[in-house]
């Protein structure tokens, strides 16, 4: 086996040096009753060539563009990834390296992550960002736990228009230690209704997603003002499509205290939902309560600029049960990928790309309206929007599927009061031709 370099000779000589006879002797310290009686029942090892054929076969059983025309977002977005990014991220000095605990031989990772942190802080308009969390959902859960730690309050308010899977994850994380979650309802225009939120002093945090699950852009400024009428309550903003901030005002400029969300759109393949990238940023005052790794700039003993992991006393390997989180492994390589992607687009490119994405969705929306669909929410949108189709659209949806067109996602499963409502998405990868074809099919 090509991953195991030992020849029989090597093995015998090494065993001799240790004073043992066989490989089994190495396990004498394991009591007999603990040792496995049967062999591993796994299939015969595949050669590289058999493995490739096997995996190619499986990959062929997946519906992907360009074969399928997919108009679906809902937390996972199809964007073009430059070849440059794919090539650079496969440099094995990056991906076979460990966490940069030995800074002298990890300056590549450390500088790149420092740059990533800066990019995230710029994108979100915040003071400081960490080196990543697992994904947008767990980032949101950790943001709420962070707010609970800071304020010492045990209740949080979460908008109903936050991605339903994110809310499920928040529920899982917060119910184990027994914290309370209040859900904020929605308004007719497709944004969050904060009017029922009283007694803010009981709340550690209020969380709002923008653009939200319906694709609608929330009025974060006015939400922030309401929430900050209590000095301590923390305003947590979340996103699933960070490309939006290439066009719209970033959460930091609108009063966000902790901004978190999913970075997959920025250079990461969708990959059936993972690995993703939990982006996490906050105001400087909260940095000691922040979860996750942080890279900081410093100098070496010759005064040369360099980077190190810092403020590690927040983390589990030092603070143990009192740590700001249990997180150890993060999504480091994904953060690096996003930094590479942003390096390619630059500030100029990302504005153009965001604008193009916005316009694609608007085009599709208008086309569907002209075809007789109803757009129930009139708040401005980015990338995604909700459409109310005529009753029984389910059959049309299935028919479109057979024609290899995915007309978004039915959201009735998450919002039972919205039958025949579908969430559609259009990015720079959906051509006018394809959108026209979809509209035409739906019309008929």
């Amino acid at each position, binding site marked *: 086996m090509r991953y195991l370099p030992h020849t029989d000779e090597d093995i015998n000589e*090494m065993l001799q040096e240790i004073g043992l006879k066989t490989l089994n002797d190495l396990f004498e310290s394991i009591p007999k009753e603990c040792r496995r009686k049967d062999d591993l029942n796994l299939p015969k090892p595949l050669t590289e060539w058999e493995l490739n054929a096997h995996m190619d076969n499986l990959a062929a059983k*997946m519906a992907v563009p360009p074969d399928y025309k997919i108009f679906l977002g809902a937390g996972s977005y*199809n964007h073009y990834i430059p070849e440059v990014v794919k090539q650079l991220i496969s440099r094995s000095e990056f991906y076979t390296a460990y966490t940069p605990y030995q800074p*002298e*031989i*990890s300056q590549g990772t450390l500088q790149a992550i420092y740059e990533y942190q*800066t990019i995230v802080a710029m994108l979100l308009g915040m003071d400081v960002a960490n080196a990543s969390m697992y994904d947008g959902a767990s980032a949101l859960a950790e943001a709420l736990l962070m707010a609970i730690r800071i304020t010492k309050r045990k209740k949080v308010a979460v908008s109903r228009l936050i991605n339903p899977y994110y809310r499920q994850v928040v529920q899982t994380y917060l119910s*184990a230690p027994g914290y309370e979650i209040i859900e904020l309802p929605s308004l007719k225009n497709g944004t969050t209704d904060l009017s029922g939120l009283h007694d803010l002093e009981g709340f550690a945090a209020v969380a709002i997603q923008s653009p939200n699950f319906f694709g609608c852009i929330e009025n974060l400024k006015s939400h922030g003002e309401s929430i900050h009428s209590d000095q301590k309550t923390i305003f947590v903003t979340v996103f699933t499509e960070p490309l939006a901030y290439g066009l719209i005002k970033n959460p930091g400029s609108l009063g966000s205290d902790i901004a978190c969300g999913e970075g997959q759109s920025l250079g990461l393949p969708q990959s059936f939902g993972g690995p993703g990238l939990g982006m996490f940023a906050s105001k400087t005052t909260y940095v000691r309560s922040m979860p996750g790794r942080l890279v900081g700039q410093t100098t070496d*003993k010759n005064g040369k600029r360099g980077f190190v992991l810092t403020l590690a006393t927040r983390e589990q390997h030092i603070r143990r049960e009192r740590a700001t989180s249990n997180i150890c492994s993060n999504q480091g*390589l994904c953060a690096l990928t996003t930094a590479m992607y942003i390096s390619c687009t630059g500030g100029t490119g990302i504005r153009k790309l965001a604008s193009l994405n916005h316009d694609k969705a608007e085009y599709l929306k208008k086309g569907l309206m002209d075809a007789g669909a109803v757009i129930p929410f009139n708040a401005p949108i980015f990338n995604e929007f909700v459409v109310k189709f005529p009753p029984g659209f389910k059959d049309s949806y299935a028919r479109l599927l057979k024609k290899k067109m995915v007309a978004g996602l039915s959201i009735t499963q998450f919002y039972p009061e919205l039958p025949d409502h579908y969430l559609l998405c259009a990015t720079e990868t959906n051509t006018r031709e394809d959108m026209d074809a979809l509209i035409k099919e739906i019309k008929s």
Partner: protein
Amino acid sequence: MKEPLATTGLVLNEPLLWEKGRKGRSGFSLPQRDIDVFPMDDNFLGNGPDFPDLSELDVVRHYTRLSQWNYGVDSGMYPLGSCTMKYNPKINERQASLHGFASSHPMLPAELSQGVLKIMFHLERNLSEITGLPAVSLQPAAGAQGELAGMMMIKAFHQNSGSTRNKILIPDTAHGTNPASSAICGFTPVPVKSNELGVLSLESVASVIDEDIAGIMITNPNTLGLFEENIKEISGIVHSKGGLVYVDGANMNAIMGIVNMADIGIDIMHLNLHKTFSTPHGGGGPGAGPVCAGKELEPFLPVPRVVEKNGSYFLSQDFPKSIGKLHAFYGNVGVLIKAYSYILSMGSTLKKASQLAVLNANYLKEKLKATFYLPYDRPCMHECVFSDKLQEENRVTTLDIAKRLIDYGFHPPTVYFPLVIHGAIMMEPTESESRETLDLFIEACKSIADEAKQNPELLFEAPVRPKVRRMDETKAARHPYLTG
């Protein structure tokens, strides 16, 4: 190889991204605009982020240079204890980046995603076979998240039977994520001391166990590289008090095909795919931390779960007792594909991998026990722990030894963990390293020990070869500069 491993090389300087570039440059091929501009509501329109604009070559040189300052498994030996820095097979990368996998949306109907669902189902079966535990969830995105899932499941189990137990027993050798994960769940960690042989004794567990203990979190093999030989009895006593046994499976690389976790009384465990199953560490992640559970805890596994019916696969939420969801979708699928690919390439040879990992560690232990102090002079599993006790008289510390190893061309072992050994040096060679590489490493260690006696300045000044010298970590923490 007669010459030393470490040499010098051309190391180019490279500024920060925003110290480069010129406004208007681009490294991105903007797609054609085939639709009109739709103006955005002025109230929401922003200025966009002030990212630097770079040309494609700017970007390529930037990251190429940065990569050259890094040391990866592909550069050389990386004997980090408890990290299992084994070789990351390139063929696994190919599989994960196949278009059908990489470009797939997680929320299409199941019949359009059979490829990945089948992989997930079969990976679960494989991990089940390897651990002996029947039910698996691939959802946790890292070992620590797997621990969290396990802790939540234990809590749910007790709540389901009407009891509230608030404490978890955690050995003094535990990795920091163990008490951290239990605390997030609302448990109070209760420490258990290891004995003079470096393992948990039945007596020490018995002395702290009561009916308020929800369970015990054991790492087996433990962080000293030793098999917890009393584990069967310990599981017995924990069960007798109504508690459950969680195993941190970070060190699974020592015992694949050798121990069946279910047989020794384990109720639930997590695996680290980025350790035992060869997926790359990525400079910090992404990893994956699947949990494997016995029948009693199966109902509490995270949802959705992969289900098979008549040869088709789909995701089901229909598990009312589930702890819920930890990941927005189904976990780090890209990582799962790599682990699956590895398991298919190895098959039952996984046992040989474990045997050779243990062989390599014992070889290092025997050859170095006169060089560095060995607190537990007994057979080890896949890793062995030394300390800097012998070098104390020269005022040389574990840190100095580690930094000097860099000058010899090796990544240092894990240092200052586990905490029970003062100045711990934990070495895990893995099965990937050949005898020659181990011999080079041993020679380097011996040479450094000599230097410690004859010329300790060499260690205090180390490392001298890489791009930077020792960093001022005090300054970095006292005056944090976290954003450029």
